[in-house]
């Protein structure tokens, strides 16, 4: 895969993420989040992880962003912030963390040529051979999380509001 595609995906993802930080409308933020997730899917594709490329689009574009939109639909969009929410004191800790992370990166490592490309076929083989039990367990975890979400958000008939 060409390096230009990877750079484009990285730049688009970062631009969308910064846009989330400074956007005033929650709907715009969700759409920018969707585009940054699509950019990350492009990065997965250029790293030869094709299964993750499809899974990222399906999970984030089809699942999580729809859940966010559902929540916005329920809660309404009336609370648009008129004043800016970010401040310099709030941006200082992430900047310091970024400096710390960058200073620890070892730029001298290069990739070996004979590594496995994790295509969809290879990933499926690994999932259903050596990682079968954790995969089934994660299905049970998903079921429990869905039941918990229903239990939390259900409105009991006897409880009175506020």
């Amino acid at each position, binding site marked *: 895969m060409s390096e230009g595609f990877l750079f484009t995906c990285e730049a688009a993802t970062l631009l969308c993420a910064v846009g989330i930080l400074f956007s005033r409308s929650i709907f715009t933020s969700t759409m920018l989040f969707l585009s940054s997730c699509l950019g990350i899917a492009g*990065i997965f594709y250029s790293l030869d992880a094709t299964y993750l490329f499809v899974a990222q689009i399906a999970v984030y574009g089809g699942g999580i962003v729809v*859940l966010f939109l559902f929540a916005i639909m329920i809660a309404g969009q009336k609370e648009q912030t008129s004043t800016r929410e970010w401040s310099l004191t709030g941006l200082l800790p992430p900047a310091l963390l*970024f400096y710390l992370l960058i200073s620890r990166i070892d730029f001298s*490592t290069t*990739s070996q040529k004979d590594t496995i490309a994790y295509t969809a076929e290879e990933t499926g083989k690994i999932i259903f051979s050596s990682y079968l039990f954790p995969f089934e367990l994660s299905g049970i975890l998903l079921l429990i999380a869905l039941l918990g979400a229903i239990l*939390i958000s259900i409105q009991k008939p006897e409880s009175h509001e506020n």
Partner: protein
Amino acid sequence: MRIESTLLIFSSLLFCIGLALLLNRKNLVHLLIGIELMLNSANVNLVYFSKIHGEDGVLLVVFLLLIAVCEAAVGLAIFLRAYRFFQSSSATMMKNIRES
């Protein structure tokens, strides 16, 4: 500088943007988006390292995607419950929660 080091810079920058979202914004949906961005940056790192070293980091990303879905579902359920109670989606409303 090679392509690999730009990916590491990218993922650390994405993580810091997610942290900045968590620290600055007040809307609960914004906080959830920040957590998802931090998870995504970790995923990019894992895929990159599995490409370099040939370990099964890709499988870890598959499980992390499942965890992200669970977290979003439960987090949005909590958001809906809090919105119904406080009639506001601001996280500052929730600082008054005490066990009576």
